[in-house]
């Protein structure tokens, strides 16, 4: 079937609610409204207000009470309305949810899934376009994932909910209305922590995740027209990183460009550059390059096209790495 990213997520959530009575959804406006992005559309109507729970407007409260429910055997799926709203919940996520399994020496599990629409490109106001993934990838006890397309959205949300560890689930909000084919009956083709090689190529590897995967694919398409063969890897999981898949690609291409729209400094790209340097030092033909957002607060909408990596910036980096 052909559907949008948002509808695929909705279908994944519906399946999870049907499969396990302990799964509950929690968040602001997720009930009658169906969420501001309609990801939970009609789920409260079909599963009731005790399975799809509208919460007061308090992010720490959402995560903290979800954590309490998890301690009683529930599997809450929390929606944080926008990336920039997650910070009030930061303590509950990093100090409580992420650590409980370790603090109790394995006696307690916190199978929470925390959905966060992230990233820019939708022309919104401040606090609505941020990429906070590195904060969470830096935190032990959390898994951090970011699907890039409807098929992965559908399978990864179900894998995240089924996992006994807390998962920060980043949804690239500018891809919510992208359409693609997927088969809801198909078994997942990859574990949650595996990267995927989307396009094979021989000249350089381009690694991306979430909203920038489509950008990298567009760059690869343009590159191909110009006679440059790019391999595109969709990371999918940011914690843990599937370094094996990236290294295997770089061992063949000898060149690596990491693309993300989050700020460059201390971002996921820095970690990949370090890990690939450790693993592929003698295979690299050029330094690992990063095409990233600048180290600035997310800019006003009229400037975001300069901040967000686009195919041209990626191809410029490709030119630099090929010249090296």
């Amino acid at each position, binding site marked *: 079937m052909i559907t949008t990213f948002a509808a695929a997520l909705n279908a994944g959530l519906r399946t999870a609610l049907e499969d396990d009575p302990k799964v509950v959804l929690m968040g602001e406006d997720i009930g009658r409204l169906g969420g501001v992005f309609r990801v939970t559309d009609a789920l409260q109507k079909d599963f009731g207000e005790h399975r799809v729970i509208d919460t007061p407007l308090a992010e720490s409260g959402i995560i903290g009470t979800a954590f*309490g*429910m998890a*301690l*009683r055997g529930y599997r809450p799926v929390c929606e944080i309305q926008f990336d920039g709203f997650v910070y009030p919940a930061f303590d509950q996520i990093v100090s409580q949810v992420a650590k409980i399994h370790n603090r109790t020496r*394995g*006696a307690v599990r916190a199978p929470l899934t925390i959905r966060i629409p992230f990233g820019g490109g939708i022309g919104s106001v401040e606090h609505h376009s941020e990429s906070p993934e590195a904060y969470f990838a830096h935190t032990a006890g959390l898994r951090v994932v970011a699907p890039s397309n409807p098929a992965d959205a559908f399978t990864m949300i179900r894998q995240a909910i089924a996992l006994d560890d807390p998962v920060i689930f980043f949804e690239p909000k500018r891809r919510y209305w992208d359409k693609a084919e997927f088969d809801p009956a198909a078994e997942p083709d990859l574990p949650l922590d595996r990267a995927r090689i989307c396009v094979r190529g021989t000249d350089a590897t381009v690694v991306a995740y979430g909203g920038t995967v489509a950008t990298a694919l567009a760059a690869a398409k343009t590159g191909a027209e110009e006679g440059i063969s790019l391999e595109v890897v969709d990371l999918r999981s940011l914690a843990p990183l599937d370094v094996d898949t990236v290294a295997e690609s770089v061992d063949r291409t000898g060149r690596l460009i990491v693309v993300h729209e989050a700020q460059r400094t201390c971002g996921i790209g820095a970690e990949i550059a370090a890990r690939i340097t*450790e693993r592929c*030092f*003698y295979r690299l033909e050029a330094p690992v390059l990063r095409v990233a957002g600048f180290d600035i607060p997310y800019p006003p909408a009229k400037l975001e096209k300069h901040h967000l990596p686009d195919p041209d910036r990626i191809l410029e980096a490709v030119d630099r790495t090929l010249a090296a």
Partner: protein
Amino acid sequence: MPGTTEYPVQLIQPDGARVHHPEYQALVADIGPGELRQLYEDLVVTRRIDTEAVALARQGQLGLWAPCQGQEAAQVGSAHALRPDDYVFGSYRESAVAYCRGVPPSAMTAMWRGVSHSAGDPALANMANPAIVVGAQGLHATGYAYAAHLDGAEIATVAYFGDGATSQGDIAEALTFAASWGAPVVFFCQNNHWAISEPVQLQSATPIAQRAIGYGIPAVRVDGNDVLGVLAVTRQAAARARSGGGPSFVEAITYRMGPHTTADDPTRYRTAAETEEWARRDPILRMRLLLEREDLLDDEFRLRVDGRADEVAHRMRTETLTMADPEPSELFAHVYATPHRGLDEQRTEYAAYLADDPSAALATVAPAVREKGVRS
């Protein structure tokens, strides 16, 4: 409504005389001589645990300890209002609550000794491991209570916290969530007057219980050094929770007689006169005076209680001193419930380093590097 204003509920006066309050007395009508003696024993034993743990800390056997001296009646009285299937969330100062719920004292010292983070499996005593970031547990209790309500379980969930924690946003959010969901949670605030060096006046311009009323949550103030008064009001709140009556708030007015932790020096911020004033309201002294008035404190009983306290303290000391240091592999244990490739790699690397096994260390690097060798 008694207890909601400047007149806290009280059933035992500081001189041990009973207060005849029809409503609250009725809630403890079943507390006869045997139960009074049990309450006294638990007060004495928990203070003995506390003094022994402070001694262990002073002797360098614990990195730190957070004494609950002065708060025993608030903790023992409220804990006695709960059933085993009720569930408790607290902070690091709830050692008397933990003892009453059956947590072994050496499980509490393990955390302060640095052997582990927690006091064991929460399921053993239906008591979550202590919140160190104060206030966070108010939300956990609210979520747990709501989940219990969805399960149809007729239990009470209690969140213990101090006056300082009421300044945290999480307590405010917990009150909001509990009120709007009707979650059967009992917020039990031990107003011990001091958040390290900050007086309660810096946390709240109103009686703390009054804030809960603003959220639509029934609230009561109780003399926190009166074990019977605390038992009565907590029974009332727990019964409300179990019967689907929603959240309640108890403010137990008490005093932290010792330091915040063994690293603290309260003489820098409060007067000896204040401490002496509260020593006259000592919860154990008050209970002893009541037992004397009611002719329940003979020498045989007194010796039995003291012997029990010594026995518990001795066992805690012995078990604390004989705790084995955790193995290095514990570093990586239990971070995730499911395998995590990034951490597995670090575990392997460090094990190889400890074993001085360069070939195992090389397994994590690329073939080209392996061929050259690590230190070539």
